[in-house]
């Protein structure tokens, strides 16, 4: 398969993830949509690594996975803290980030 096909799939997944971030209300689902966008970037990185024939793009993809894991960790911590304080799990009602 040509590299362009992989880039097209990556672009489409990124757009779907962006649409999810814009339309969903639940912060958990917004985190999932962020994962979609990061994974789309991963596909593009690995496709370009294949195009150039060296492994450096794959290292980038692994670093992106690490960053995604950290983001999930902190994001889910925030969601659990919200739930503990009996705040609504809804980004439209959480207009202020005061303690």
């Amino acid at each position, binding site marked *: 398969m040509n*590299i362009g096909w992989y880039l097209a799939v990556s672009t489409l997944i990124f757009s779907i993830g962006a649409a999810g971030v814009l339309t969903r209300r639940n912060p958990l689902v917004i985190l999932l949509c962020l994962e979609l966008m990061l994974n789309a970037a991963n596909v593009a990185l690995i496709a370009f690594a294949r195009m*150039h024939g060296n492994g450096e793009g794959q290292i980038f993809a692994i670093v992106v996975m690490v960053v995604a894991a950290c983001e*999930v960790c902190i994001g889910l*911590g925030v969601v659990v803290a919200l739930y*503990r304080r009996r705040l609504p799990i809804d980004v439209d009602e959480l207009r202020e980030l005061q303690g």
Partner: protein
Amino acid sequence: MAELFFFIAGIGAIAGAVGVVTLRNPFYCVLALVSHLLSLAALFLLLRAEFVAAAQVIVYAGAVMVLYVFVVAYIGGGEQPALRPPVGRGQRMIAGLCTLGLFAELMVATLGSGLKAIDSEGAPYRPGFGSPAQIGELLLTKFLLPFELASFLLLIAAVGAVVLARRRGGVGEAGDERRMSALEFARGPAPLGVGSMAEAAGDIPGGVDAESSGSVSSTIGERGGW
């Protein structure tokens, strides 16, 4: 044959992504994301990135998604969407327009970039490309600093998640709980309020007075430690 696998995996990935965005129940969203990640791992294999595909399946679809499932089960996200209507039509229209614009722009940016190799299969395959040996060698020689920084980032994120999610005296529950100050923490007989897992799960009451803390610590000992 590669074309067939590409289309199966690509359609699976796109269907999973659409499922994440459209499904109502957050638990089903997580399951859709798992199928999406598995399809992406197949795509990575087609691109000869064997190590990244394995890491994707084990770390992402395994560990990270289990974390999501735990949090969804803890919060019980099923009843949330029924309480409130979905976002308004205006917001949905604007989001769709923004997404279409983004999609067109990214397509132009990637496919219209004029790189000649985009229309080819890529560089000729060398044995060992994308293997764990090559990735490990790169990580420990050329990309040593990013590797160490990534490990630091993971450590900081783990500490941050524990600090964020631990139980503490909140706005609504000020009556029966009190904050541990640093001084109390230093001189207390049993250091409660340290944000341990057992405390976060509510097994240990957050703030107890001094005479009952001995019994609490004994119960901790019976349960087999923190």
